[in-house]
C-alpha cells in the first residue's frame, strides 16, 4: 500500500527545490544547448554532410538533449538526497512512515517532471537554430521519461554513496560526461574507423542516444529495441540497488 500523500509531499518539495534553483536548473542548460548549436550546428554543421538523410544540425538534437538530461537528472537527484544527508534533514524522511516506494516515486516523479520541462525548453531552443520534425513524438516522450527515471535513480545511488562533495561530482564529471560525448552525441557510430565503431558499442550511452535519435528520425546506429532493453535493464538494476539500500539502511541509517 503506497502512501500517496507522502509521495505527493516529496514530489512537490523536490519540484520546489528545482524551481528555487531555476536559474541554474533551466537557464544554464538553455545557454549550454545554444552554445552547442552555435559551435556544432552553425559553425561546423554547415560543412558536415547529412547523416542518414538528416541535416547535421537536427542530427545532434537528440544527443544534446541526452547530454543535458543525463547531467541534470543525475546531479539533481544526487544533490536531492545527498544534501539532506549532509545537513541532517534526512532524519525526517527516515522517521516518517514512508518506504522505498514513496521515496522513489516522489524523487523519480519529480526528476521526470524536471526532465520533461528541460527537454521542452531545449527543443524550443533548438527550434530557433534548426528545423526538425519528431517522427515518433509519443515514443520520444516515453523514452525521455524512462531515461530520466533511470538516471534519477542512478543519481540517487550516487547521492547515497557519496560521503563528500568531491565524490558527488566525480562520477558525472569523470565518467558520465565523457561517455556521453563519446556516445554518438555529435556523430554517428558508423563514422568511426574500425575498430572504434565496435569498441564504441561497449559504451552504454551509445544505446541511449541512439534510441532517442530513432524516436526523432526513425533511424539510428543501434536497433531501437536493444536501446529500450538496455534502458529498462539499467532502470531495473538501479531500482534493485536502491531497494537493497533502503532495506539494509546502508549509508542512511547508522
Amino acid at each position, binding site marked *: 500500500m503506497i502512501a500517496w500523500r507522502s509521495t505527493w509531499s516529496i514530489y512537490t518539495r523536490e519540484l520546489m527545490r528545482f524551481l528555487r534553483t531555476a536559474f541554474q536548473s533551466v537557464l544554464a542548460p538553455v545557454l549550454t544547448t545554444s552554445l552547442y548549436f552555435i559551435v556544432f550546428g552553425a559553425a561546423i554543421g554547415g560543412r558536415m554532410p547529412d547523416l542518414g538523410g538528416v541535416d547535421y544540425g537536427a542530427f545532434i538534437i537528440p544527443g544534446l538533449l541526452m547530454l543535458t538530461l543525463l547531467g541534470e537528472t543525475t546531479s539533481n537527484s544526487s544533490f536531492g538526497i545527498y544534501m539532506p544527508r549532509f545537513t541532517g*534533514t534526512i*532524519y*525526517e524522511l527516515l522517521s516518517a512512515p514512508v518506504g522505498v516506494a514513496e521515496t522513489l516515486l516522489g524523487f523519480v516523479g519529480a526528476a521526470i517532471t524536471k526532465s520533461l520541462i528541460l527537454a521542452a525548453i531545449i527543443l524550443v531552443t533548438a527550434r530557433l537554430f534548426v528545423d526538425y520534425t519528431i517522427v515518433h513524438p509519443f515514443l520520444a516522450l516515453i523514452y525521455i521519461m524512462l531515461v530520466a527515471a533511470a538516471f534519477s535513480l542512478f543519481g540517487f545511488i550516487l547521492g547515497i554513496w557519496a560521503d563528500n562533495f568531491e565524490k558527488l561530482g566525480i562520477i558525472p564529471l569523470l565518467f558520465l560526461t565523457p561517455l556521453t560525448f563519446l556516445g554518438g552525441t555529435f556523430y554517428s557510430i558508423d563514422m568511426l574507423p574500425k575498430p572504434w565503431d565496435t569498441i564504441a558499442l561497449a559504451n552504454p550511452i551509445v544505446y541511449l542516444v541512439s534510441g532517442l535519435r530513432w524516436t526523432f528520425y526513425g533511424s539510428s546506429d543501434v536497433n531501437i529495441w536493444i536501446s529500450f532493453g538496455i534502458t529498462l535493464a539499467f532502470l531495473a538494476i538501479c531500482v534493485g540497488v536502491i531497494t537493497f539500500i533502503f532495506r539494509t539502511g546502508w549509508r542512511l*541509517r547508522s
Partner: protein
Amino acid sequence: MPDQSRTRIRTLDASASPIVDISALTKVYPGGLTALDGVDLRIRKGEIFALLGPNGAGKTTLIGAICGLVTPTSGSIRVFGHDLATDWRKARQRIGLVPQELSTDMFDPVMRAVSYSRGLFGLAPDPARIEEILRSLSLWDKREERIMALSGGMKRRVLIAKALAHEPDLLFLDEPTAGVDVELRKGMWSIIDEMRSRGVTIILTTHYIEEAEEMADRVGVIRKGRIIAVDEKEALMARLGRTEAHIALAAPLQVLPPEIARFSVELEDGGTSLCYRGGDGTGKGKAEVAELTKALYAAGIDYTGIEIRESSLEDIFVSLLGEGEQ
C-alpha cells in the same frame, strides 16, 4: 511538588500497558562500539519521561532506534503495540521527533516546512491546524520567513512545529533546550507542559538535570548503553535523596554526648561544626534536623548557625553514575 492532575495521570497509566516497550535492545556499531547494551524500558501513556546520561551514554542512539534512524543489532521495540521491525509504518505514524541538531531546510519558509512535515506523514493539508501549532509556538508571525533568517531558539521551535504537524501521540525531544538561553529554556518547558496537557507522551533527553527535575514524571539514567535506574522522579529522590545540615557550634566539642550521637552526625572542623547526613527525599531529614536542634538545646550545646541542604536530582544522578563506574 507535583500537582494533582499530574499525579492522576501517573496513577491511571501505571497499570495500563506501556505505549513503548523495549526489550533487550542492543546496538553495536560497525567499529565495535556498543552503544546500547540490553536496554529494557517501558514508557507509559501521557507521561514525561526524562532520559539522563552523560555524553556518549546512548541516549540519542536509543531515540534513533525507536524513530527509525538507527538499525538495532538485536532486541525488540514495540510502539503502541506495533512491532517496529514489521509494523513500522503504523508505529511511526504516531511518533514525532525533534532532533538535537538544528536540521531543517534553511531555504524553506516556516509555513511550507511545517506543512511538508504533515504531508510527509500522510495527512491531508490542514491550514487551520498548522496555524494553531505555529501560534502555540509563537511562530505565526514568522510563517513566511525563511528558516535561515530565524534565531537559534526560533529554529528549534520550527523543529518542534514540524514534529507536531502530524499530531503525534508520542514525541521525542532530543536535548530540546541545548544551547538556548535561560528565558527561552523556560519558554520551552511551558511548551512541553502544554503538549503533555494535550495528552502527548513525551520522552526527552537532557543535560540539564534541572530540566528533568522541573518537568519529568519519571526519570531513567543511562550509562554506557545500560539503563542503570528508572523510577518516578519523586520515588527516585525519596530512595536516593539525602539531607545534609551543618551546625556551627558556639564552643568546640571534643566528644559527642550520647543523646546527640544517636543521630547520624559527626564533628567537623576541629569540633566547631556538627554535620548531619541522613533522611531521604521525603522530608524525613529535615524533621530529624529539627529533632537534633532540640536535642542540642536540651543538652545545653549552643550553636550560632544552621546550614541545611536537600540533595538535588543532579546529586542523585552524579551518585548513580559514580556507582555505575565502580
